[in-house]
């Protein structure tokens, strides 16, 4: 399976989500498949399509700590993006490379992450609907949407976990439960660095392993290239007229 490989490095939340959508929209016309890896700078909270920004995110605290916030086109929960590698896979739902069945497609794409983690020395498993666990803890969360028969699945592979910072940016139902929530999440979530204490792991080494993991697990043949001028122009427009605006981010 031929696929375009993009490594776009660290970008803002608005740029990142705009690029994912611009590639998705282009794939609806050119039927091209793309695998992209990226990071977030500044750090950001993304919320799921169906979540309420006001209910989930402490926007004042985000501003104080210079953390951006954004709504995704995909469902799922709030994610704090700081120490992680993020990927997106965009491809037509052809019934072969991308199965029609939603759970099967999650499972298939997540094999790339599982293989990548294996290269790093971490054994992990897919847990339906959308998680990957290692040593019994969540190490990767994933979300997908399908528009005009093209799939966009994006997800995170955690490098490190800063639960205190994450919860300082999120609203919690009851303030008195904050400490308990932090303790619970610490027991349920883990990063690559936490599992490989003796190794030097950073964004680049993890990205490299994931590139190889996807290649092997999904039998990919990479075309290493960059975004087209048309994709970049559309991403700029989506950033300015959608993702950076309250109309979108405060929509629900």
């Amino acid at each position: 399976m031929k696929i375009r490989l993009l490594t776009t490095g660290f970008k803002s939340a608005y740029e990142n989500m705009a690029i994912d959508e611009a590639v998705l929209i282009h794939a609806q016309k050119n039927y091209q498949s793309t695998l992209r890896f990226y990071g977030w700078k500044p750090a950001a909270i993304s919320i799921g399509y169906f979540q309420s920004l006001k209910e989930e995110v402490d926007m004042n605290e985000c501003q104080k700590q210079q953390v951006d916030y954004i709504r995704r086109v995909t469902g799922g929960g709030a994610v704090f993006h700081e120490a992680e590698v993020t990927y997106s896979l965009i491809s037509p739902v052809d019934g072969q490379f991308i199965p029609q069945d939603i759970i099967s497609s999650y499972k298939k794409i997540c094999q790339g992450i599982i293989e990548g983690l294996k290269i790093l020395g971490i054994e992990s498993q897919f847990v339906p609907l959308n998680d990957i666990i290692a040593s019994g803890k969540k190490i990767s969360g994933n979300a997908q949407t399908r528009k005009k028969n093209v799939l966009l699945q994006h997800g995170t592979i955690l490098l490190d976990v800063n639960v205190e910072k994450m919860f300082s940016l999120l609203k919690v139902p009851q303030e008195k439960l904050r400490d308990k929530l932090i303790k619970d999440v610490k027991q349920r979530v883990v990063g690559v660095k936490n599992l490989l204490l003796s190794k030097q792991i950073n964004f680049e080494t993890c990205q490299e392993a994931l590139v190889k993991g996807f290649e092997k697990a999904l039998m990919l043949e990479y075309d290493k290239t960059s975004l087209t001028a048309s994709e970049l122009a559309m991403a700029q427009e989506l950033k300015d007229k959608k993702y950076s605006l309250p109309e979108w981010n405060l929509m629900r």
Partner: protein
Amino acid sequence: MIKKSVYKIPEGKLVKIELETVDNEIKKIKITGDFFLYPEEIISKLEKSLESCKISKEVLIKHLDNFWKNHQVDCFGINSSGLTEAILTAKEI
């Protein structure tokens, strides 16, 4: 008055409801949470369709079952009984 609920669907995701009612009917409803619906944009239509719906377990489950079927919606982490329970919980607060 707006009534609210936060309900974790058994084996599913978290659903948050904001509800306005008149005479045991839904006047306005907002459904948020970390669930998945395909296509996503259907959520507005779903909320609109629930307006004037009687707040009873049987009526709501039937309404939701028909809605998913008629609009070919795929649900993950959310289902008719879970969403109904969330709505009924909001009513009781």
